[in-house]
């Protein structure tokens, strides 16, 4: 019994140390000042260009200085024009993303978990995947008109494939050893899926959703290029046709912010689901 007691003390000591030490260390590492180093290059370039235009070294007509882009962005925001465009774009991405991701999750799930369905579905889907998604545009316009439906369809197609591939791949690569634990406890197929497969595929599934979302933003631009009266993509085309590079750059900045925001939102809202992961990076 002494062995029992000593091992107890030993484990709790070690446990306590492990409990206390790493979170602090990690926090300290997160607030590393070197993060700021990343801002140096873009800010330096912006300041240099601003100065070059101010001192008349460059004209700044085709490449407007940061201050002018900022003014344009502010003006667009003040008139409310920016929000109309942002909202239109966000709405399209959201609907397209939801449709594409839902399709990808359902078909990816089926194809990953049932051999017969995989043999039936996968070859066709892989063949369709080989088609550049933009190539669908003319067909979608013919079928769905030039308004919202065709745009959303294009985005949904763009989102679908990475999600489908990610989910199916994640299910196929679930550790056999964990599945066996479920088998030993005689879980039914449904229970096995719910208690082992689903949590096991979550991290990879979320990554595929993120890349799907990224593609969604890519395709919304393509969709808005092909004829739209509002949306950030329209702002881009309008800026080009009217010769307003500051407007183009303002729209690009809006895209960057929006994309990053949507991605962060996805990451943060799903973080509690994958907190258990034992990974190197805490932040990506």
């Amino acid at each position, binding site marked *: 019994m002494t062995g029992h007691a000593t091992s107890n003390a030993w484990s709790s000591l070690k446990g306590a140390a492990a409990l206390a030490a790493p979170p602090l260390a990690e926090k300290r590492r997160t607030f590393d000042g070197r993060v700021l180093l990343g801002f140096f290059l873009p800010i330096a370039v912006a300041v240099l260009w601003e100065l070059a235009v101010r001192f008349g070294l460059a004209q700044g007509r085709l490449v407007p200085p940061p201050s002018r882009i900022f003014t344009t962005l502010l003006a667009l925001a003040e008139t409310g024009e920016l929000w109309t465009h942002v909202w239109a774009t966000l709405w399209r991405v959201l609907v397209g993303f939801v449709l594409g991701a839902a399709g990808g999750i359902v078909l990816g799930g089926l194809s990953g978990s049932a051999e017969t369905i995989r043999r039936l579905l996968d070859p066709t889907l892989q063949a369709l995947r080989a088609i550049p998604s933009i190539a669908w545009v003319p067909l979608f316009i013919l079928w769905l008109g030039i308004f919202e439906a065709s745009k959303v369809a294009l985005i949904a197609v763009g989102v679908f494939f990475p999600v489908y591939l990610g989910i199916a791949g994640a299910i196929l690569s679930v550790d056999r050893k964990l599945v066996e634990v479920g088998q030993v*406890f005689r879980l039914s197929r449904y229970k096995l899926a719910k208690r082992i497969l689903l949590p096991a595929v979550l991290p990879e599934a979320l990554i595929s959703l993120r890349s799907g979302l990224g593609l969604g933003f890519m395709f919304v631009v393509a969709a808005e290029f092909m004829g739209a009266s509002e949306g950030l993509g329209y702002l881009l085309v309008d800026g080009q046709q009217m010769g307003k590079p500051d407007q183009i750059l303002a729209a690009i900045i809006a895209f960057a912010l929006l994309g990053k925001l949507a991605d962060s939102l996805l990451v943060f809202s799903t973080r509690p689901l994958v907190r258990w992961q*034992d990974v190197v990076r805490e932040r990506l």
Partner: protein
Amino acid sequence: MLSLEHLTKIYADGTRALADINLSVRESEIVALIGGSGCGKTTLLRLIAGLDKASAGAIRLDDETITEPHPAIGIVFQEPRLLPWLSVADNVAFGLEALSTPERKARVEHALEKIGLAEHERRWPRDLSGGQQQRVAIARAFVAHPKVLLLDEPFSALDAFTRASLHEHLLTLWEETRPTVVLVTHDVQEAVTLADRAIVMQPKPGRIFDELPLSLARPRDKTGLPFETSVRRVLTALDHSLNTPHQEQPRERDRQAAALWW
């Protein structure tokens, strides 16, 4: 009683992993399967666990034939195989879904107490050391109160100190419900520490070479002469089991050499 009758396993590629295994294990007996690598110990355990199907022969537990995982048979694998998304307590409770919540809680708490991890119940497996994780895996198997517990070299990846303490934990847990235990190991000391009987196995194809009763009184004194004698007996049997095929090997090599000569 667990009985194996003419158990044979041939893999799809033709490898004969097990040939004609006959063995019966009494209730509450601890049996150690010992042997060099590749003698089918793990395969045998997977068959009893119902994770693989035998090519011939039968496994019976109290007149019930085992062909798939059975509620009365639990297994602890070589690796802890904890589910990384469940807390320590939820991992232990994994097989207890059918029980009522208070009953489940009581069993899990009791088991965690026994293995000395009560204060870690809300933590994730990743925060535990290898030895602690393996203890959780053992508790997960024990809380389901199996009649037969299979242990597949569960301590092989751990250092000697941790291993010794885990042997203690295992025996205290075993005392409570006294299940039949089939322990696969390649550690003779471990076999003599835990088992009532050592089954020495032989490779290619995997079969039983010898059986040695280890009727030492518990708790066992690892420094005493009887312990030493038992270890030596098992080692000798193990040596013989490994030597027999060695004598055949030169002949095999000669034949291959002859084939090359031609």
